[in-house]
């Protein structure tokens, strides 16, 4: 399978086989070679500020518990009891010093140690080596500007190196003002009947769809005229390692079209340029994807989300809404409302995306439809490395250059036996 997969992605000619969106064997290989290997987003630090706070999520299909232990250290473990493999914690979030399995009562401290085994003296004759049966930890955990990531692969490069030149663009979303961002309470979680790569590539580089998919919402006042206007500025940027961002010119409005938000953005713009440097005076980031499945968006709604894979044709979306920590209450409320009305399961933009991604996945079940590759050739040959942007940039604002880099990275990882073969 490994050798075969690279043939399914022809980046040079912009052709991608539909098999990678529907076939179970390819999906299983993704779980091993993408999700058990890459740095994956877990949560924002502001969700677990106090010792004992935890957040329950998953990495690929593996359930994972993210905790701040008694010493305040971030940790993440498989949310799985070592005895019979029962799911350990069934809550979405909260605060706990320890977690007790519902099956036989094995108890783990929030640093992962197995501290309680009922009848350990009588039934195990004190022979159970508790030290060896703690919760399975991730191989590496780290955070960047409050964004907590982890990987199951000890050989993965450190987080900063993995993110590479994408860090500046992450700053431009999440660290624009003093204190960075925090999330609005609660998450949107829902299931989309599509392959996880379709939303990931959409946020990575698909400015093109906005002018048609979302025209109804733009025309009825939900999204400003973002991207539908004729302003030619903007580009798709690939920052390396499969990460992508879309940008517009700094003079463009790239924010939820609420008066308080627009006034706030105008006011803080000089501060952003001062904080992030001249690049911030030249461009505004719009959307992006940290490979493989962490995406973010700034105009229309301020959201970041994880596309959790749940089978070749099923994706569970976990979407947060974020605000600058320094933003005043009226701006926060306007951004919260944009997050509800424009994106999320009832969002007037996002509804239409999901319907398209579902059909893009489902028609691929046909064996004949699957023989015909998908077209990713937009902007082929019209991209170049930009020294100032520190990224491969498309010449025109609409291009599939980012999607090509996304799938190129995908193919590299799918073919490689180990991290050393990739770097």
């Amino acid at each position, binding site marked *: 399978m490994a050798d075969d997969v690279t043939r399914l992605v022809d980046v040079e000619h912009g052709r991608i086989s539909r098999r990678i969106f529907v076939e179970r064997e390819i999906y299983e290989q993704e779980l091993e070679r993408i999700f058990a290997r890459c740095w994956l987003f877990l949560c924002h630090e502001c969700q677990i500020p106090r010792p004992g706070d935890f957040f329950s999520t998953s990495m690929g299909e593996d359930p994972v518990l993210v905790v701040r232990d008694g010493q305040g250290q971030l940790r993440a473990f498989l949310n799985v009891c070592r005895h019979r493999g029962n799911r350990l914690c069934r809550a979405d979030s909260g605060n706990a*010093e320890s977690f007790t399995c519902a099956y036989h009562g094995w108890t783990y401290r929030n640093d992962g140690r197995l501290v309680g085994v009922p009848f350990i003296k009588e039934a195990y004759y004190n022979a159970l080596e508790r030290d060896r049966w703690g919760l399975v930890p991730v191989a590496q955990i780290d955070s960047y500007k409050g964004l907590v990531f982890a990987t199951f692969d000890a050989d993965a490069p450190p987080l900063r190196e993995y993110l590479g030149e994408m860090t500046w663009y992450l700053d431009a979303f999440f660290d624009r003002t003093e204190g960075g961002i925090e999330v609005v309470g609660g998450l949107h979680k829902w299931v989309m009947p599509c392959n996880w790569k379709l939303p990931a590539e959409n946020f990575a580089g698909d400015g093109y769809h906005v002018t048609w998919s979302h025209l109804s919402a733009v025309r009825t006042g939900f999204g400003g005229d973002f991207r539908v206007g004729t302003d030619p500025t903007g580009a798709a940027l690939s920052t390396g390692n499969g990460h992508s961002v879309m940008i517009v010119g700094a003079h463009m409005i790239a924010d939820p079209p609420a008066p308080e938000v627009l006034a706030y953005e105008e006011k803080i713009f000089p501060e952003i340029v001062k904080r992030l440097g001249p690049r911030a005076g030249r461009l505004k980031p719009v959307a992006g994807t940290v490979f493989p499945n962490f995406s973010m968006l700034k105009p229309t709604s301020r959201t970041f989300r994880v596309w959790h894979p749940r089978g070749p044709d099923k994706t569970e979306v976990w979407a947060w809404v974020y605000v600058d920590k320094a933003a005043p209450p009226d701006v926060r409320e306007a951004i919260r409302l944009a997050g509800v009305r424009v994106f999320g399961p*009832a969002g007037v933009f996002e509804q239409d995306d999901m319907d398209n991604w579902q059909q893009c996945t489902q028609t691929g079940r046909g064996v004949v439809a699957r023989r015909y590759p998908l077209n990713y050739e937009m902007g082929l040959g019209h991209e170049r490395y930009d020294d100032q942007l520190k990224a491969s940039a498309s010449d025109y604002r609409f291009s599939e250059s980012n999607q090509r880099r996304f799938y190129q990275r995908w193919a590299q990882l799918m073919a490689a036996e180990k991290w050393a073969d990739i770097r």
Partner: protein
Amino acid sequence: MGDDLLRDVERFLYREARLLDERRFHEWLELFTDDVRYWMAGRSTRYPPSSQAITVLDRDRRQALEVEDELAILDETKGTLGGRIARLDTGMAWAEDPPSRTRHLVTNIEVEPGDTPSELTVYSNFLVYRTRAESEQDLYVGARQDVLRRVDGAWKIARRKLVLDQNVLLPKNVSIFF
């Protein structure tokens, strides 16, 4: 509260459900007051900050919360509900092209006095079946708490709080009204 009033409220809610199922959204919108807040919460399971007790022994830890200033599934004014309807009218709202076929079942209606003499607090449960295109189908099940206000001799909905019982929503979207 008397049976006549209950029947009156039932008639109002059943007609409202029929307007939705017949996709008469502009007439449906007229059932709301201009100051309505139309709000739908989701659910999550959270453990509040710990006591010294072991998690599993502490019964009060499990909470299903809906918090008003958090993310909601819907948080609408009459204006944004109107905007959603206008979007459907463009003919380019792809999630509703082809349109959903819905059946709104409204049950467990209880009527209580409201905060003012012209208002009632009305509780009800809903089960909405949605099918679309060839074989798509979803169930939306939850509770409503309405404030009905008497305006010019007719009932209007002055506040609607909806709780959708799923945590991870299983329908791919919420493109219909409740």
